[in-house]
């Protein structure tokens, strides 16, 4: 026989992929053979979660070291200026209007300022200290200062791509090459889903305050991972989930009749042919039918008391960032594993002073309210919240704005095993280069995975002969940021 040997990771991989289609009994057989066969290579953690999503006993299989059970990623798309938000640079203020020293910029990638005179531009806002920790933030924020002691600010981020589209791809998938899985897909693949009524990876989008740079579906696509790990974009107008509403004139009862009849026929078929995919399909139709009520239920915020709506500063699920923050909490409560909120409004090439004010006004209160709300419900401990854009902005002026900048930017994280009240890392005096305790995007991913109990070096998927990781061949856990 020319079958591969059971120790061959190829076999493990194929079982792994085909398991999705298998019935519980066959799963158990394969699982046994799988676990007996592969000590290394493909993460057995990931494997466990495949079963997990098919079965209902989800909690039991979460890694025991997990601090965070779910992630909410507040994605500040467009590139918020670190110099106007979390990274105070007095020296840059002193140098305002003077030429930017050549030693910084020579031979470095530059976006729209290519070939232009490079002049230092001091911060537009004053910075104040907040909370017992005394974390520094610019005066543009009114609400995030209230959660200063809950968040860990990282000021020493850097990235590799200087244009929005590839930089988003890099932040989401750890590479600028298209076709790789988004981080949400990796988390779902590694941890499975806790909900049986909603997708495990949900994406919401809001706009306003600056140029609305486009966001491609690539940013939440599962790439070469199986399609069920893909992010589901929710919409604030039309169907919240594509095709979730019954066709016009079709009552819930009639829809139920159609599904029942097709399930009955599928079951007859399952008795005639041996095709495990039929049973999976039966379950998917049940889930789809449940989603048809669970999604409207999720979106219906009429049960939220006024003080909660006021906390977020929203009237409900209206497509605003604040409304989406409220939905994020509701999604988290319902067991959604990875929730990503894009706000497309941070690309301030010009008029950054007013632009920062405008965008912040849309984002500030919702971000802070989400942390406060999760905290008062006891959910912040096991929910990791990340607030980050794809890059920062130049210390050099671009007229009244700032250009894209990849050598330094800031972000913050909270909850889920993160040390609150900590400022980590530093940039140089100009805010040009991340200088002390530098953190790459791979390091961020490694840390996030670590907090959910996953080892970034072991969470792999074999594709085209290579064991791919979210962190590629890099990444290290930033231990000092852990609680």
């Amino acid at each position, binding site marked *: 026989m020319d079958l591969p040997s059971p120790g061959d990771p190829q076999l493990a991989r194929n079982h792994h992929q085909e398991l999705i289609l298998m019935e519980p009994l066959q799963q158990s057989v394969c699982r046994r053979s799988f676990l007996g066969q592969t000590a290394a290579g493909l993460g057995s953690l990931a494997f466990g979660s495949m079963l997990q999503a098919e079965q209902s006993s989800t909690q039991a299989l979460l890694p025991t070291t997990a601090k965070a059970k779910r992630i909410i990623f507040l994605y500040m798309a467009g590139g918020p200026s670190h110099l106007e938000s979390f990274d105070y640079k007095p020296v840059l203020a002193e140098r305002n209007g003077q030429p930017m020293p050549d030693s910084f910029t020579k031979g470095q990638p530059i976006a729209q300022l290519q070939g232009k005179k490079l002049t230092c531009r001091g911060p537009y806002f004053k910075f104040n200290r907040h909370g017992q920790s005394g974390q520094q933030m610019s005066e543009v924020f009114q609400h995030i200062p209230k959660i200063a002691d809950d968040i860990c600010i990282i000021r020493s981020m850097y990235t590799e791509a200087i244009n929005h589209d590839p930089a988003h791809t890099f932040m989401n998938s750890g590479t600028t090459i298209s076709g790789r899985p988004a981080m949400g897909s990796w988390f779902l693949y590694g941890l499975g889903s806790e909900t049986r009524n909603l997708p495990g990876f949900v994406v919401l989008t809001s706009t306003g305050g600056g140029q609305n740079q486009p966001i491609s579906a690539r940013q939440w696509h599962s790439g070469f991972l199986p399609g069920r790990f893909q992010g589901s974009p929710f919409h604030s*107008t039309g169907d919240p989930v594509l*095709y979730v509403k019954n066709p016009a004139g079709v009552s819930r009862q009639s829809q139920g009749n159609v599904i029942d009849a097709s399930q009955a026929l599928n079951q007859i078929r399952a008795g005639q042919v041996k095709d495990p995919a039929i049973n999976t399909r039966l379950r998917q139709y049940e889930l789809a039918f449940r989603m048809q009520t669970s999604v409207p239920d999720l979106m219906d915020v009429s049960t939220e008391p006024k003080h909660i709506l006021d906390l977020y500063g929203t009237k409900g699920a209206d497509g605003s960032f604040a409304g989406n923050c409220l939905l994020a909490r509701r999604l988290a409560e319902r067991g959604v594993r990875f929730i990503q909120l894009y706000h497309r409004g941070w690309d301030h090439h010009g008029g950054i002073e007013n632009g920062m004010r405008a965008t912040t006004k849309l984002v500030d209160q919702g971000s802070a309210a989400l942390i406060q709300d999760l905290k008062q419900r006891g959910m912040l401990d096991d929910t990791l919240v990340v607030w980050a854009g794809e890059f920062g902005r130049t210390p050099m002026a671009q007229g009244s704005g700032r250009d894209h900048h990849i050598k330094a930017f800031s972000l913050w994280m909270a909850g889920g095993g993160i040390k609150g009240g900590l400022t980590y890392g530093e940039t140089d005096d100009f805010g040009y280069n991340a200088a002390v305790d530098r953190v790459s995007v791979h390091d961020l991913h490694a840390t996030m995975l670590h907090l959910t109990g996953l080892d970034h070096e072991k969470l792999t998927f074999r594709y085209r002969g290579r064991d791919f990781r979210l962190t590629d061949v890099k990444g290290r856990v930033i231990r000092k940021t852990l609680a």
Partner: protein
Amino acid sequence: MKMVQVIALLFACLPASQAREIKFNRDVRPILSNHCFACHGPDEKQRKAKLRLDRKEDLFGEREPTLLVAGKPEQSELYLRITHGDPEERMPPRKFPKPLTSPQVNTIKKWIEQGAKWEDHWAYTAPIRPPVPKAGKDLDPIDQFVLARLAPANLSPALATDPRTLVRRLHLDLIGLPPKPDVTEAFVTNPSTVAYTQLVDDLLASPHFGERLAVPWLDLVRYADSVGYQKDRLRDCWLYRDYLIRSFNENKPYDRFVIEQLAGDLLEGDPLEQRSWLIASGFNRMNQTTSEGGAQAKEYVAKYAADRVRNTAAIFLGSTMGCAECHDHKYDPFTMKDFYSFAAFFADVKERGVGYPEHTAMPTYADLDQWADLEDQLKGLREKTKDTVLQEEKDALNKRIAELKESITKISNSKKWPKTLVTLNAKPRTVRMLPRGNWLDETGPVMSPSVPAFLGKLNLGDRRATRLDLARWIASRDNPLTARVFVNRIWKQFFGKGLARDLDDLGSQGERPTHPKLLDWLAVEFMENGWDVKNLIRQIVLSEAYRRSSNHPSSIDLDPENRLLARQASFRLEAEFIRDNALAISGLLVPKIGGRSVKPYQPANYWFRLYNSGKYVQDKGDELYRRGLYTLWRRSFWHPSLQAFDAPAREECVAERPISNTPQQALVLLNDPTYVEAARIFAERIIGAHAKDLERLDLAFRLALARPPTKEEIGVLQNLLEKERAIYAENEKDAHAFLKTGEKPADANLNPVELAAWTSLARVILNLHETITRN
């Protein structure tokens, strides 16, 4: 019992089983590749101890201590190091995340004991026609090879499938559309080999054959109607899609097909044909491009170059050459130098680094055909004038000639032509090797075009190699990969999996073929038959292996992945064909071939995440009912119904789509207006054909599943009909609303309550697992 059998099978294939001969390629190379090559493989920079285990000359060369002593593992350093008592000395090192298992160590031991025989990597040496085994009587070569593997495994093949399943399978595989009931019934009445062969030939001659084959090719070349990056503006290259459909329908030899796409702009010949070749050369422009403000042209020129190397190698060579952009390949002998020399072949492709891609006006194929016809007529008439003496006749001829000339002027007016992406060749740019792939670093050497060194050499003297040279090298009989890669992918279309399972990696990390000899036989046969694609497919579908039942419980238990091909496969249709199937069943399908991409129903605001909310102007009329492959493909947000069924973004080469099974798929089939409208038209079709419920049900099943319903199924559906009649009789308003879904008006002569109830029934049928599955 079932479990016992499975475990028995697992034991039966343990590598340690005594009688088994250990083969280097099958058993040993995969272990070395996965566990050792990272530090002892092709990548020079990562290489430790100056030791290479991927080449014969290193593995068996002079070295102290000797790596391999045939027959004596205890004297072979390779074996001693992987079994060393001291964990610090033992290989792979402790910190390397892929330790060896004891069966793997044992395999290496046995291999040395048996003489440590080397084999070149199977895919890197030219295939030689293997002798056809004699496993059975009167069998085609394909079946001989398959049976030769089945017999020793004690697996008996499944029986031939029933004629209904077969006729449906053949239709879905060859044209991507279900059989018409009369075709099914004619075959059921006479399921002879002659009738089957005739059916095969009819379908191969169908103009829908080209559409079916184009779909996987469009995935490979990353065809899309938009540029990809950032704003993702729309672009036009649908003429290239027409080229593909036409080429498959004309049965263009595959070697020619390859050359026209890679270098059609460099071919010389008939001026009209040249236009078609130019359209084909649009292949080189399929990459993503950007026009984002602040993007640097130089960076993107480097990106496009890398994109072309990565994807061209994946498309034609099934190779993961993209890995060598920043370092030598870890597993296969591709070097960084190979990567950038390969990139240099494309240095003459005219393009903007940043900016909207330039388009070129080109005639459509309909125009080209007409133009050629006019030219022929003109030539004929000119000949005729020479022999004509009568003035009257001469005048008449001259008048006709003038008319023809005018028609030619009209049709050759490029201002009336649609625009498309083609390759225009320019002075080659300088291509440098980029250290670590860094485009800002200009210290690397200037590269001239050449093919990967370990795969051969172009002997051109001092002349700079061109894309045409590359194309000819790829499409040559000496290239060990090209035919194998293509034949393997075609096989997958007819069996659900390739003979080599990794359709896009025939390299060291790819899984070795389940039937290496069969793959080689098919590849050699294919080349010797003039790279004849239809002939290859004909051979496959005429085999007994192809015609077997997919429902074969004993082999499903013993060989769940069907590596031994005891049965046929059962798999869900691909996204486009799910749509096509529903439209065809209902009778809504507009079977027009080719042309501009179309915009079917799409959820409102689906593009809201793009600039200016990416306004989508839906088509009207016939264009709403075209086949899935014509749907406008916007890379940032490709059609959500296709996406739900695993259609890829078309940013990178995809050789095999995953087959997922998700709730979103159920929501699409239940609620997408495409399927609701198709259900209504389907209902009108069956109501219009018959008066009695049972007759209607019978027709519905024959249209959708090529079979009559069973009693049990009829019971379920009659029950549904009663319920739905009651619901809609009580709420006639709902019935009217329901029947308004879609742009085609409902048949006003039909009772709306009745039509609504039958539409519900039709929805059930369009949602069935069996309807979207090819068995």
